[in-house]
């Protein structure tokens, strides 16, 4: 590793810490608003609703919006899988040489599964970017951050793929720079949904779980006292 690479790795680490602190700050700000105390007698459990929301409730057949947009759903899944894979590859590239478990990853992962996931992610990101540009409704509900966030995450994923395939130092350095910019941008961007997705989905499930609406309970209201 050259000094430049060490410097880039340090910057990556610093921006990761920055992103985490930013998300933590936002989460604490959310907490500051306090929990709602509920007085109505429950008909179900928040926990049951939350479990449903994160499991069956997320299946493609559980939501009409997904059933009617299966391609967008698949692209979204591919995109997120690709980004997650790129993060794993980043760990491999930066601290992998000090971590035996990573050094010993089976070849099928390195040469087939990971590249395929990255390709799928890049295709997903680019397709969703184009969809946002072309679809009038999506354009109407978008702000500049939607395009920038997508562009950054897609670039990060595509450069991870390029690094893996080309094995060129300058490509890897370019990828590191894209990672630094991406992590630095997270607290300002919609990528904060990497945290808020979980909080919101939990609250969504808990709300409907408390009322006995989730999971859909066939016996609700059918056994009175």
């Amino acid at each position: 590793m050259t000094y430049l690479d060490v410097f880039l790795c340090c910057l990556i680490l610093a921006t990761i810490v920055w992103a985490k602190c930013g998300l933590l700050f936002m989460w604490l700000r959310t907490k500051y608003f306090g929990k709602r105390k509920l007085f109505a007698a429950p008909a179900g459990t928040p926990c049951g609703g939350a479990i449903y929301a994160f499991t069956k409730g997320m299946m493609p057949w559980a939501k009409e919006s997904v059933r009617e947009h299966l391609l967008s759903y698949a692209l979204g899944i591919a995109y997120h899988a690709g980004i997650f894979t790129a993060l794993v590859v980043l760990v491999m590239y930066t601290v992998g040489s000090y971590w035996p478990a990573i050094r010993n990853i089976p070849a099928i992962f390195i040469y087939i599964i990971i590249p395929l996931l990255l390709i799928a992610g890049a295709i997903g990101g680019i397709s969703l970017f184009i969809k946002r540009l072309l679809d009038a409704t999506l354009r109407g509900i978008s702000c500049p951050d939607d395009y920038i966030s997508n562009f950054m995450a897609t670039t990060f994923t595509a450069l991870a793929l390029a690094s893996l395939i080309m094995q060129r130092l300058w490509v890897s350095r370019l990828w590191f720079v894209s990672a630094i910019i991406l992590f630095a941008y997270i607290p300002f961007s919609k990528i904060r949904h990497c945290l808020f997705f979980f909080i919101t989905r939990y609250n969504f499930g808990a709300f409907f779980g408390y009322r006995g609406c989730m999971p859909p309970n066939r016996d609700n209201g059918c056994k009175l006292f």
Partner: protein
Amino acid sequence: MSELDELEVKLKALTEAEIESGLDVFKSKLREAEVSYLNSCVHCGLCANSCHYNRAMPELENVPARKLEHIVSVFKSKFTTIGRIAPGLVGARPFNREMIRAWVDAVFGRCSLCGRCSINCTIGIPMPSLFRAARASLASMGLVPSDLQATVDNSLKYGNNMAIEKEEWVETVEWIEEELQAEVEDTEARLPLDKVGAKYLFTVNPREAKFFPLSLQASAKVFWAAKEDWTMASDAGWDLTNYGIFNCNDDQAGAIISNLTNAMERLKCKVLVIGECGHGYQSARWMGPEWLKKHFPYPVISFLELMYEYLEQGRLNVDPNKNTQLVTLHDPCNLVRHGGILEPQRRILRRVVNNFAEMTPYGHENYCCGGGGGQLSMGKYKSRRLKAGSVKASQISSSKAKIVATPCHNCVDQLMELNKEYSLKIQIKTVAELVANAIV
């Protein structure tokens, strides 16, 4: 003065201090759950067609995410660092008259608070909770459409939303009692008023007293057949409706729900029974305790649950051959998606009619009829309401049903208008009406 002009006049008259306090009211409605919702939309657009408004009238302002964005943009500009530093980047916008106009249009004019977008949202944002916070803010600035506010004011003044005087209500009940006695040929059949210590306090929609006496008679027949110990209040406390859930003024909603809790205390009943009404059920069962910030020391149940129990216990003898026409069921959003009462109504119908077919989709995925969220009382948005109802109308015609059953009088009203508007040639009945007809 037209309603639109009225809004403009009110907007013009707003002072900066009133706008600022409107924003404070909005903030006061947020807890950590709502703040997380405001941080979550990824603008994927997948919720667009889940809304009956957008399905019927595809345009940007009808997309749930767009309605939400009006609210989120204000939140970003006031309560987030990036929204203050770089508003253009994240779509933060100030809370000014233009934005307030957009809020009124989005949350009163294009939303029935049905919650269908929530269950279809990629993230799971319960949008009605945010739309309610926005309505509350608008209410604090006096921007609730005047006809919706008048309905609330009626409840506050008369104890019911149709300004029915006590004498008129009591006379109506006595008249229905006579009709019931004639129908069941039993002079002991009663619609008891103010029976202290009765097991059940039954509540109704004032539209039953004014326009649909047969509906109240049907419920009374069910109680009579089940030999139940029940009563209704003669004073405030008989009307289950609460339009405070729609103007989102929690103090007013709390005052209206107090009519029911006071009647429960006065009459020492054991269970509060909400007649067939979606928003009435959500108000009393789920929101009432929150508005009053107290646990209710008695169960609050839907009349559907009770009717199902009677059938289960064999307390009602029914013959489904008395209802031979094809029946379908419209699920009220407040009762099903937001209330959790999904199953009793269909189990009842399967027992009391011999030809029942579900709509597609149904249950918690069912489309709103378009009459919820106070839409029925906002004349200004009538044409939108009827157009948005075309989704429900086409669901009904595809079902080929001759009778649409729905356990909600607001839905009954909207469905009757849709029946006329789209020439559906159907009959609309409450579940109790079909049960009563099947009693042998």
